């Protein structure tokens, strides 16, 4: 019995060591650096206590990035979950070419993000955009629109570059939700629908009282995971706009990168990173709670 326990420890040791080296050490180092005025091109590295944190909280660019991060996360998760659910319901119905359509759904997820980002940058380019051609031919706009640059076109506080990047993020992330929802839909016993039909339930009632409640456990996990990923999102905001123009699409991920590698303020960037980690951790705890509730 004892030897079995040692064997188990030996088996998990590589994974534990990897996590300690690759995740825990950088986190601890990041937290440590956040208390130093550490810049790459300044020889001294004085301890400054919480000064970096206080400066971050006074920095309007941080608040703008945080606002954008929250807005992107909520909108992206909401719309991609909704789209994922609709696509999953369609793929679960009796459609012709269902296998082909399922493969097609996976496309945005399997294409490398850099390819997607640069393709969209060209698609949204003011001079060459096919969307502009369509809108112009329909007389919906007077001149070509700069989808990634025009800050004057807005819906309330949301600017056009924000909407453009958001659209790409939704398009690339709905697949994950669709696949998960589809898997969950296929576990719902057909008998439930048959019983509901006998009881005279219409399609909406079947969805409301059978399908939707069955999807909630999967949905909760998917949404929580997506929120964690969205809070630390970097790819599309950096590749498409580098967080610009004028910080319109700057999120915490891109702001940290710029602070660390454009201005070389590693201590300051670490402080922002720790704050971002704290926000992610809240959702991490929720996720763990959901997973534990499922497994126990």
């Amino acid at each position, binding site marked *: 019995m004892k030897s079995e326990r040692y064997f188990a420890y030996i088996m998990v040791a590589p994974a534990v060591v990897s996590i300690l080296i690759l995740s825990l050490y950088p986190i601890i180092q990041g937290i440590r650096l956040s208390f130093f005025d550490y810049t790459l*091109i*300044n020889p001294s590295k004085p301890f400054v206590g919480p000064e970096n944190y206080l400066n971050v909280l006074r920095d309007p660019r941080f608040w703008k990035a945080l606002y954008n991060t929250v807005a992107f996360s909520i909108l992206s998760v909401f719309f991609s979950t909704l789209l994922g659910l609709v696509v999953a319901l369609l793929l679960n119905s009796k459609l012709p070419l269902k296998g082909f359509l399922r493969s097609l759904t996976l496309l945005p997820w399997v294409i490398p993000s850099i390819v997607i980002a640069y393709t969209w940058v060209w698609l949204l*380019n003011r001079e060459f955009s096919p969307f502009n051609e369509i809108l112009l031919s329909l007389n919906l706009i*007077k*001149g070509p629109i*700069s*989808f990634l640059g025009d800050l004057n076109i807005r819906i309330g506080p949301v600017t056009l570059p924000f909407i453009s990047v958001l659209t790409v993020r939704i398009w690339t992330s709905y697949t994950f939700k669709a696949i998960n929802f589809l898997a969950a839909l296929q576990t719902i016993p057909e008998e439930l629908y048959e019983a509901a039909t006998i009881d005279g339930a219409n399609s909406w009632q079947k969805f409301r009282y059978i399908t939707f409640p069955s999807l909630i456990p999967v949905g909760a996990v998917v949404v929580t995971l997506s929120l964690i990923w969205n809070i630390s999102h970097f790819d599309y905001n950096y590749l498409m706009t580098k967080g610009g*123009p004028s910080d319109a699409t700057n999120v915490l991920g891109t702001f940290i990168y710029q602070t660390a*590698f454009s201005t070389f303020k590693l201590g300051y960037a670490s402080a922002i990173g720790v704050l971002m980690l704290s926000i992610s951790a809240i959702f991490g705890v929720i996720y763990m709670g959901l997973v534990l509730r499922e497994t126990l």
Partner: protein
Amino acid sequence: MKKLTWLWVFLLVFVLSSEVMGTTITFWTMNYGDTASQTKMLDELTADFKNKTGIEVKYEIVNWSQAFNKYMLISGGGPGPDCADMYWAYTFSTMGQGKYGPMDISSELKRYGGRRGLEKRWYAPSLQDVFFGDKWYGFPWRIDIRITAYRADWMKEIGMSRAPNTWNELVLFGQKLTKRDPSGKVIRWGVGIDGKNPQTFYSWLWQAGGEFLTPDNKKSAINSPAGKEALQFLVDLIHKYKICPPDCIDPGFNLTAAFKAGLIGILPSGVGAGFKREIERTAPQLLGKVAGAIPLKNKKRITFQGAGYFGILHGVKDKEAALKWLEYLTQDDVQIRYSKVSETLSPLKNVNKDPYFAEDWWYKACIASLPYGRTSQHQTPAWTQITNPEPTGIIYDMLQDALSGRKSVEEALATAEKRMNEVLSKY
């Protein structure tokens, strides 16, 4: 006893093999022009160098997209080569703090006749980038001078046979070149600038007689009448004269792509020596229609000039061997070949006398612009932070704010000045 014998044999074989193998050095360079041609050239040059000196050079081509991060890591203590094609000597040497990154090789300067000796072979402005105070970091090998490209065929359309010479002429020519369809939509812009590239602003500020920093490099000098004139002029090109595309600040905007697509007529101080091959490769239909010209004049005729150099890095195993390789690389005949393949202009005076450069329609304009070139580097490690071409880069933010109309010219300059002084105060 037997073990000891084996040990001696092993050591003997090791020493002998080292003797037979000779010295090996490692060298990094970024990608230039056509990578296949660059690889072939480097293979041949390293073979020739080995024949002549017995020193083997193992080279690696580093993609430009990774170059900054790689050199930053090296300068922070990461593993690197013995010598390399480098840039931003002030920033990387400060990062390395004399222990890592670019190595000060001033002690070797005597053998080249000091700085004056170098000036006999190199254009003086190119040497500004490799001297930091009294320290010398290497041999300049490429000049990235920005000249004016324009559509000569369109100039004829508007009755002009040359490029604009002054700011006033730029506006005049730009207005004549800009075409609109009956609905008022612009189908051809007269002038193009890259509003998301801080380098765009260098030439305009200097042409207006302004400076980025005070002579001691300790304070910002950008918020001056000249700074205002330069920034206001760029804003006016877009918003007042309406001859420059307003999406020049758009992250997706590509200045040369728009020029090649026939959407823009003049790129003032907008492109470098490599533009010729870009046209040849990707827009050959424009050959004979595009021409190059010396930079514009306002108070001064001046243009931005970047540079790259060959330097030695801390941690070098055989400094003498590395230095020999760099000497070999900067020989005139080697540099003629190097510049042709890498599609760059050389800072070596004799190289540009070669007919390949001196008689070429595009390089001729680049060489004619060299007397007006000015190094883009200021002797402070803060310069990189000031001019980083991304959000949070100070000049980048200033251009974005002013050209988008988010801030007035005065506000944008004042903000930039304040931020520059904050950064500069740390050095």
